[in-house]
């Protein structure tokens, strides 16, 4: 009898992912919102939610890697905005569309490399480097735009953000492809393995021959790149690039990553968890919209969610400590 119970327990453990509490949260939230708002369980709303979390998810991929390393990047909102306004400005001036896209991506890569350089080589804590980056990036945005918004981009560019394939926006495909590639890279490549190793024990990683500095720089650069991709698809969707783009974005992204279950101390977690975290963040803001909760409550509720997420992480850590 006890054998059978054990077997069932093993099965449940095997097939129910680690994040089962969060999946229950997603189901619960959906049921609550759906029971109040008839619009919730529609295909269109479903697509809306995914589009709304696409930016958080894409940048969350980079942020997950950074946090797995044991770092953090609070400059993502600024990188996002910077690539958006520069690309937008050049687009509005006309010429071939590919040029501003490439420039935008280069800006993102360069900014990420900058963060990585100061973290890995100069050995300043990532929080400080990227906090400075947040201010520097936003500062350049303001100097560059003088607070103005550019709009009116070429049709061919807007297609990235607005056209659909089989009824699903291109943005959704881009998000899914990036996520799948990132999951593969983290789980199956030596680069991904090295990220986990550094986050677990950077001294041991160094002794094991892992190029800790190089990998740290690459990870920050990837994050910069993903910010630029997000910036591009965002302005393509909105047909406008303003200086206030992406303010507070770092907050949402970090919430999604930590809520998903990637440990803030590094070494544990993954992209899949971040996707779940992002879905919850998206569901909550979608629900608040549908239920007509005032936008003024947004920040208040987001703060509570972040605190709840970190509390969960700390409790997980404690439990492990006890079983040692």
């Amino acid at each position, binding site marked *: 009898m006890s054998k059978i119970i054990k077997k069932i327990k093993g099965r449940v453990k095997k097939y129910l992912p680690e994040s089962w509490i969060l999946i229950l949260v997603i189901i619960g939230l959906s049921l609550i919102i759906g029971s109040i708002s008839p619009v919730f369980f529609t295909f269109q709303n479903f697509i809306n939610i995914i589009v709304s979390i696409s930016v958080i998810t894409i940048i969350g991929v980079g942020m997950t890697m950074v946090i797995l390393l044991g770092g953090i990047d609070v400059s993502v909102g600024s990188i996002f905005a910077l690539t958006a306004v520069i690309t937008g400005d050049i687009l509005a001036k006309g010429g071939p569309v590919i040029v501003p896209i490439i420039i935008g991506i280069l800006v993102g890569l360069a900014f990420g490399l900058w963060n990585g350089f100061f973290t890995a080589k100069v050995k300043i804590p990532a929080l400080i480097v990227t906090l400075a980056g947040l201010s520097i990036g936003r500062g350049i945005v303001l100097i560059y735009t003088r607070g103005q918004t550019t709009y009116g981009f070429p049709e061919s560019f807007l297609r990235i953000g607005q056209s659909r394939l089989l009824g699903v926006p291109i943005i959704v495909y881009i998000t899914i492809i990036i996520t799948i590639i990132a999951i593969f890279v983290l789980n199956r*490549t*030596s680069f991904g393995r090295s990220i*986990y190793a550094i986050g*677990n024990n950077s001294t*041991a990683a160094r002794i*094991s021959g*892992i190029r800790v500095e190089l990998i740290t720089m690459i990870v920050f650069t990837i994050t910069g790149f993903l910010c630029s991709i997000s910036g591009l698809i965002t302005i393509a969707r909105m047909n406008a690039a303003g200086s206030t783009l992406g303010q507070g974005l770092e907050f949402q992204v970090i919430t999604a990553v930590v809520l998903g279950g990637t440990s803030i101390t590094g070494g544990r977690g993954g992209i899949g968890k971040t996707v779940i975290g992002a879905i919850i963040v998206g569901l909550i803001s979608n629900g608040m919209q549908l239920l007509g909760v005032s936008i003024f409550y947004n920040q208040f509720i987001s703060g509570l969610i972040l605190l709840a997420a970190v509390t969960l992480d700390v409790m997980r850590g404690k439990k492990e400590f006890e079983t040692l």
Partner: protein
Amino acid sequence: MNDKITLRAKKITKIFPGGKALDNFSFKLRKGEIHGLLGKNGAGKSTFIKILNGLYKQDTGEIFINNKKIKNINPILSLNLGLKFIHQELNVFPHLSIMDNIFMNNYYYKPKGFISWKKVFFETKKILEDYKINVSPYTKIEDLDIGKIQLIEIISAITKKAKIIIMDEPTSSLGRREKEKLFSTLKVLKSKNISIIYITHVLEEVLNICDRATVLRDGKLVGTFKKRDFSRDFLVEKIVGQKVKNDITDIEKKSEKKLKNIRTSLSARNLGYKNILNNVSFDANYGEILCILGLMGAGKSEIANIIFGLIKDYSGNIYINGNIIKELSPVKSIKNSLGFVTEDRKRSGIFYHMSVMQNCSIVILKNISKLLGIINLNKEKEIISKIVKKLSISTPNLKQKVKYLSGGNQQKVVLGKWLAKDQDILILDEPTKGIDVSTRTEFYNILLSLRNSGKSVILLTSDYEEVYSISDRILLLKKGEVKKTLYRKNHTPSSLLAELVSN
């Protein structure tokens, strides 16, 4: 010294998953005595100290202080009871001044509750003059050398009105003059009826200052002896025990192997590092276990860290297979077929939340991955399961996270990652520290079989029994200098201990 007992431990037993750390251990400390606590590594000394400090709780047994039974000790309670601990690792506030460090939690106050800095300053100054430490009370601890820091820590303990001071190897980083100062201070404390538990490996110190000495072996009390009854040889015999364990004689048989053609693997020439290493030269050979035997602080870890490129500002040269290697780094060392099992597996060995497989394969990722660094999981599994089998790492499966393994198995995993890479020269720094006896024997057998297959093993250790069990050649390292080369066949464990602790 008088006959009043200030601290009494009665039949203390503490069981860890690896075995009994303390087994029915009883101990009496008199008022105003310096009481040596002796025993080899793992004998149970530090477990006992941690119980007194409230960091561990004994399974059975009682502790009395001034005839009052003390239950549920915790660090704060033990401080309030007048116990003060001075550990091997320093417990100071490096960024604060000497006076803060001495008077922390114990400042002089003005009537309104403000600290009287004037008084604190002059008191500190007086103390420093008393101890002939010629620095200002404002000096930050981080600007002092380690000997002075240790003295400051001891002084701070005394000013906190400790009744019982427990010192764990307090002289490991002191110079001769500082040592003498410390000893005269201890004698002053004694005259003030303060009791001292003094843990050390250096028997000369015990003979010099201790009134009584208690010897522990394998968690059991061997005996408590009076000064007039003990001599150096007597203590060595008590610490080591009469008979050497059977498992070690087993190993002994295997280690009778003659080297035919000696081929040098790694050479160090005139290594120097700060004032820790001085002119260290040696050659290690393939097919040999070279032991570098030295006490804590002798410079063993520094040698290993230089070879592996973790210490940069050293002098001298390292040769591998006869080629000089400049600008050493872990990546370069690994390329030259070196492996390094560090002293502290938690801090620099294992990847805590990762699986056994991922831990072992971390060095061979390049070898088992194809285009774009994609890991060939089947190959990984194939190689690592061989290693796990070879080292008999006890784990339910390869996916088990390393944090759930026992210390001994974690250590095997750390060794396993270098065996997976099939490195030819292995450096191990205190690899069996804190590992139970049976796993230790397994570990020795592994090292011997590696040596027999032609690898070069360099073992840095303070454990003379370990050295006796498996070494082919022994370098005696003292205060950063190689003093002698010894051969196992000429020695017994006790004669090795004698060499280790002699001046």
